[in-house]
């Protein structure tokens, strides 16, 4: 097995674990923005598309590349903009109830501390 393939597999393995660990902590509150953000990030297929669109492999290749660049750019630009539009809508209540705010912030971590603070606040 070549080194490039081996490193690639390691990167994939580790990135998947990191992905699981980080994304598990995203509260249900943000599941839609999460999906739209990962969509924008997956727009990185732009990287492959750009090389195909800009390299000299004949007309067909360039056309395929250009369509791919368009499709990925829609995801990158649209994905980031719409995630921002959504995140801007999420507002906390005026600092009236700090206990509740802290609880929502910690939500998803699933720690016993959360349960404790929940009990204390009511």
């Amino acid at each position, binding site marked *: 097995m070549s080194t490039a393939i081996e490193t690639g597999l390691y990167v994939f393995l580790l990135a998947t674990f990191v992905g699981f660990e980080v994304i598990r902590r995203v509260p249900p509150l943000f599941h839609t*923005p999460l999906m739209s*953000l990962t969509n924008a990030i997956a727009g990185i297929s732009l990287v492959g598309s750009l090389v*195909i669109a800009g390299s000299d492999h004949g007309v067909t290749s360039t056309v395929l590349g250009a369509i791919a660049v368009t499709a990925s750019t829609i995801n990158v630009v649209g994905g980031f*903009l719409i995630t921002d539009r959504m995140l801007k*809508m999420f507002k906390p209540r005026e600092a009236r109830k700090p206990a509740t705010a802290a609880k929502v912030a910690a939500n998803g971590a699933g720690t016993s501390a959360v349960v404790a603070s929940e009990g204390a606040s009511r």
Partner: protein
Amino acid sequence: MNDYVIPLCYLAAGGLFIVGLKGITQPKTARRGLQAAELGMLFAIVGTLLHKEIIDFTWIIIAFVVGSVIGALMAVFVPMTAMPQRIALSHAFGALAAGLVGTAEYYNHQPEIGAFTMAAITLEVLLGFLTFTGSLMAFGKLHELLPGRPQVYPGQNYVNISVLLVAVGAGVWLVVDPAQTWLFPVIAVLAAAFGVMLIIPIGGADMPTVISLLNSYAGLSAVAMGFALDNKALIIAGALDGSAGFLLSVIMCRAMNRSFTNVLFGAFGQADTSAAAGGAVEERPVRSATTEEAAMLLETARSVIIVPGYGLAVAQAQHRIRELADVLTRNGAEVRFAIHPVAGRMPGHMNVLLAEADVPYDQILDMDEINADFAQTDIALVVGANDVTNPAARTDKNSPIYGMPILDVDAARTVMVVKRGMKAGFAGVENELYFQDKTLMIFGDAKKVAEGLVHDLEATVRA
């Protein structure tokens, strides 16, 4: 010099993507996370443009401008209720890009392609085209261009699986012998056909799971592209996308107490709906109330939990419900919103709709956080939700929804249900909740009822 700059750009991109996702785990850091991810993307694009393989920028610039305009227009004008459709479309775009890049890679380099690269390209094209057509189908169902009901015929699963197996078989052959160019279009067409066939039997209400699953596939096709091009940033981004989609679909399945195979091959709700639509169900007496009567009860309530469901989104009632919550709060009641994981048409959809209606996010709680509180609550107000409140999920072993985690609204002192009629929910089961003594049914369109409640409650409070 570029030999250093390009890999470092990709490394920065991969790191920033992870930082970005970490940001979105908390409301306070969410937008900063988004900016980190944007910066990462910028690094990745700059790094790519430095490649010496790129010799002509004409098409790149044209495609980039066109894509940016379309993307920006969609981002600005898509209403929040249509978010699931937009996400489905963007899965389609991402997957299309992967499929096309794979196609170009193959034709540009065959027959001198190593077995591993060929396998990666095959996987990229398979996943890319099946996710492309599958996502378009999901878009059609969500946008109601296609019928939302599951379309089934005998032997469907066998046909679907055979198509997939033939496509995979052709892929294996191509890996063994990359010179068999005729196999390539066969794989692409079969994958595209499988994408369509996969979604046909899946009903509209299973869309939260399906969208998440397609998200995962789109991510994996990017990973395959990363292997084909030996690009680590692609592998990282694709793996993050893939694991996010996979996790979300697991959460959705768990919230419905169903397995993956059941969602994909089960055509849920099909038989039950026809059985339950019989009519005998509606004979049993329920207590119904007008908005005035309901308003009088709400006026005396000290704590209210509002349970919104998809019916609320359909009726576009989120703004009216928020007004109702405001009036109740001014009247001294503690008002909170309880969200079931599958409320809405995609994970977290209801939260976005409520946030758009200016409901503060700390007033919105998910099932696990709020379930214990129903017992100390005066009124649970259910708006456009059905199966997720059905106590049969806890008690009736024969019920198709037995075992599904539900919101314990029946523990509240009084339950009010805003509903258009007595029709059964998506699962086709009657809801025991409606026949309990403490339950008041308020029949009507969610938006009109909410308007009526706000009006009558204001009148009651003033009197």
